[in-house]
């Protein structure tokens, strides 16, 4: 290697430089020292606290007066450091994700990033809104960066699309927890998993049956026909939930005594831990359902 030259500054104000055409004019000005040119507060994840705040204001009456959400064990969600929140998933257009995100943000004052299927990004307007209000595509790299490097709270539904796609007669019966990817995410990031059992989402928008052929034509993961559609019509029924009473119970956080940042983790261990969490969540759901006197009043 040759002699080290002092690092050249990118501001040779007097040095003529190539312009668009190639002429020599001192187009290169001193670097802008003005304030940050950013005009919006959209972060690297696409989240905007302004939009999130607006969404919170719009959503708060629904949270308080429509779903009348009640939490049990909210103190088990860590106030500092990363944690992976997992929950059961239900309702044709899942009502549980906003409830959890809103609840945790209101009560703990911490942002929650909700992981969702990549498919969301392909939907115009909806994908952008989802991203601005804290949604992130469920990619292992995204989860690692959020959990490990930025120590954030991340919400994921291990059932994936199979949870909200199930029909009303299967309500509160947990689907398979994928391939245990969420456990691997938490292990690699070295953060605990905080399971939350949600009661109420199933009844807020129950699926009567699905129309797979229409789903295929429209390119959506599933095409539900819900009780809301029958009650309120096809348009209003897609966005209006039944006022089911929401109860959420936070289970004890699960920590893993494995080293973070490993390339791979024992598949059998991952599957076992995932199954363990699933069993606990299922038992808690049954317990809560046994205690529930009314779908609408809790």
């Amino acid at each position, binding site marked *: 290697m040759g002699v080290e030259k002092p690092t050249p500054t990118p501001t040779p104000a007097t040095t003529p430089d190539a312009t668009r055409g190639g002429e020599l004019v001192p187009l290169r000005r001193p670097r802008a020292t003005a304030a940050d040119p950013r005009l919006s507060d959209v972060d*690297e994840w696409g989240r905007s606290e302004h939009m999130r705040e607006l969404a919170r204001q719009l959503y708060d009456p629904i949270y308080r007066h429509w779903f009348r959400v009640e939490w049990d064990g909210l103190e088990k969600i860590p106030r500092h450091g990363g944690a992976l929140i997992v929950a059961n998933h239900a309702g044709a257009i899942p009502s549980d994700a906003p409830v959890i995100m809103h609840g945790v943000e209101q009560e703990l004052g911490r942002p929650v990033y909700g992981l969702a299927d990549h498919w969301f990004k392909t939907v115009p307007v909806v994908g952008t809104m989802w991203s601005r209000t804290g949604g992130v595509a469920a*990619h292992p790299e995204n989860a690692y960066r959020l959990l490990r490097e930025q120590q954030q709270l991340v919400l994921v539904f291990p059932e994936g699309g199979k949870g909200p796609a199930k029909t009303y007669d299967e309500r509160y019966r947990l689907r398979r927890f994928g391939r245990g990817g969420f456990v691997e995410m938490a292990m690699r990031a070295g953060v605990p998993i905080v399971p939350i059992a949600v009661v109420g989402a199933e009844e807020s928008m129950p699926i009567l049956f699905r129309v797979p052929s229409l789903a295929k034509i429209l390119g959506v993961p599933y095409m539900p026909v819900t009780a809301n559609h029958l009650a309120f019509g096809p348009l209003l029924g897609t966005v209006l939930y039944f006022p089911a009473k929401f109860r959420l119970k936070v289970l004890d956080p699960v920590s893993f005594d494995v080293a973070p940042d490993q390339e791979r983790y024992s598949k059998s261990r991952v599957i076992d831990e995932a199954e363990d969490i699933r069993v606990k969540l299922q038992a808690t759901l049954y317990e809560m359902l046994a205690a529930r006197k009314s779908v609408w009043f809790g």
Partner: protein
Amino acid sequence: MGARVLVTGLGTFWGGRVAQTLEADPTVEVIVGLDREAPKIPLERTEFVKADQSYSILSRIVKATQVDTIVHTFLVVDSTRMSGRTLHEINVIGTMNLLAAAGAADSSVRKIVVKSSALVYGSSHQDPVWFREETPRSQSPRTRVERSLCEVEGYLSDFAEDNPHVSVTLLRFANVLGTDIVTPLTKALDLPAVPFIFGYDPLLQFVEEDDVVRSIEFTLRHDVPGIFNVAGDGRLPWSEVAAICNKPQVPLPPVLTNWAVAPFSRLGIIDLPPETVALLRYGRGIDNRRLKQAGFDYGYTAAGAVESFARAQRLRRTVGDSRPAYTYDADVEAFFRHSPAVVRQPE
């Protein structure tokens, strides 16, 4: 830094600027520039050699000049500039010939720096928010420019493996913005209204053109083999980029976007190749931390690059676009470089 440097793509924006930077360094004895076209900026001591697009002359030049370093800036990343066939010829065949010359048994080459593009990561809805250098792309490349760049990178990694004595550095640049460079994105931002795909507001990442040249210089100056992403910190939505440039936005349909754009492309109004349309739908982020850890200091953030472009754009609006004043003349250049009549100042 190597003492004898070969710059490919001397007639391009980047090749010329890299050669200019090298000329300023007295430890660089010889700079040879290769291109199909004459340089568009005045150079003092760089020797220009005219080549055909696939660089078949290259092995002779390498042997004759005994260069120790090759800077390969001649990879075409803007598919609107030429036909797919020419692009393939330049990118794939050109690089193949270059590596063949550099890897010859008695080759003097010890270092190769290649200017590639973040296009190798593609842009799809299955992408992570940040691509690290190891992250594979989510979907196989569909456009010609992406396929050719992926092929080039494949050749390079083979070459690096087969020639451990050569230090190979591959730089993948995010979209470049700055005062001078013209790309499909800057052309879009120069329109009276900036096109966007209705319903999508992707997060984009930029690198300022000064940082591009500086990062190439940095890798020449330091021994940093491997792959590096080069991009300014942060990402910002396309709507905000348009807002910083003080431009209104005009929507493109979210379905069949490429078809909708095609007639405008033909008329030369909008020039959005498919890879740029994909970018305007899903955006792209590349993790720039590895190059920082190697010791490189970025002069601009992504938003800073946009600001730099916006300032130049405002200036151009007032003083107008400057037309080329410099044309390369082989006889004149040869006279100044080699004629005994020219009195040369001793160093």
